[in-house]
């Protein structure tokens, strides 16, 4: 089966529809599927619900889909870096469901693993717990959270082989593996596609079974907060 596509547009062909649910990898601007996001902007798909830890910044990442008003609802843990997000949210144009970060990651992992729900202590006694089933285990109270199954997953990895085995780099792994697994269909973008056999099978982070289509491309990889220290002079 051919998984490698020429472009993000080609890789998304036939997968996008209005009102769809997309799970996206990335943390802040680190490890985000920037090429696939651009292609969704170009496709003009509307009323999208997106599960992603963050929503990019005004002019990069998922923030671009906000500028074009293509997002109906976000499921996120932190959206602080985005003025347009706040404007649309406060004016009621955009729905927002806050999930604690670990709950969001586990919802994706569970959804991809065939687990429809799980109990967690996270959020007990807070607004997050309102309306959710509470259950006691061994004297501790837990709440029920649902697994996420998305119509489409979009993720970014460092390298792939042509069978879709993925290798991530440093903290750019973040939400990408759980997001990849929770989609009915997954498209991955990578910096380099290498021939099968050239990745060490013991170092593959996400097996190709989860990845249906692949593209290679140039990434901007923008830095959100550039922090440095001075070199000590001898």
């Amino acid at each position: 089966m051919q998984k490698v596509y020429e472009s993000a547009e080609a890789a998304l062909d036939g997968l996008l529809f209005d009102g769809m649910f997309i799970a996206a990898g990335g943390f802040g601007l680190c490890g985000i599927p920037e090429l696939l996001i651009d292609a969704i902007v170009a496709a003009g798909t509307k009323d999208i619900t997106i599960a992603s830890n963050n929503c990019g910044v005004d002019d990069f990442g998922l923030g671009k889909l906000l500028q074009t008003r293509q997002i109906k609802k976000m499921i996120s843990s932190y959206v602080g870096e985005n003025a347009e997000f706040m404007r649309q949210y406060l004016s009621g144009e955009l729905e927002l469901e806050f999930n604690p970060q670990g709950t969001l990651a586990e919802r994706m992992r569970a959804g991809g693993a065939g687990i429809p729900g799980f109990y967690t202590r996270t959020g007990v006694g807070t607004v997050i717990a309102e309306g959710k089933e509470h259950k006691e285990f061994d004297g501790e109270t837990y709440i029920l959270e649902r697994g996420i199954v998305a119509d489409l997953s979009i993720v970014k990895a460092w390298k792939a082989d042509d069978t879709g085995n993925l290798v991530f780099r440093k903290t750019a792994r973040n939400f990408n593996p759980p997001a990849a697994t929770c989609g009915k269909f997954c498209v991955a973008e990578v910096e380099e596609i290498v021939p099968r056999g050239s990745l060490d099978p013991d170092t593959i982070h996400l097996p190709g079974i989860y990845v249906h289509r692949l593209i290679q491309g140039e990434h901007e990889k923008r830095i959100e907060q550039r922090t440095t220290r001075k070199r000590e002079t001898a």
Partner: protein
Amino acid sequence: MPWDRNQMAARAAEELEDGMYVNLGIGIPTLVANYVGDKDITLQSENGMLGMGPFPFEGEEDPDLINAGKQTITELSRTAYFDSAQSFAMIRGGKIAAAILGAMEVAENGDLANWMIPGKLVKGMGGAMDLVAGVGRVIVVMDHANKKGESKVLKECTLPLTGKGVVDRIITNLGVFDVVEGGLAIVELADGVSREEVLSLTDATVVN
């Protein structure tokens, strides 16, 4: 004299023991890393890293290597990377010995509020709710009172909670306090700070 930010961070660093895996929040908690000395402490960054190193030298920033505050950082010889699900599995699973976090309000029963002020811009809880629910010990580092001079150490939190009954110890500019049966116990006072001064700025019940 009440402690300044660095003195609070230094005092918080005394809470850490050799061999601990620790998560530090944003603000004063981040400064704690400067005061661990020779102790063998491994810092977790909840976006998927154990063994967080200092900021990179100028020109050596790597967009693929950031902390939970989205700042560029470096790796160490002990560093391990993992995905967000595994990161919070180790947090929720109680593998992280302690979290040192900032707060807007803490109550005498250990309730913590540090993620939203109703009517103001809500940015989200990030990983804070998972951390306080999961780690072994939650240590809050914050100013004892807000800029208006109102106590942040309360009988009951007024803001939406991050966690219920989760705080073990509070380190403020005035001293160190433990959440115990019936209220807060004074563990230590900052040099030159009197018990009366603390009581006048504390809304919570002090048991000793």
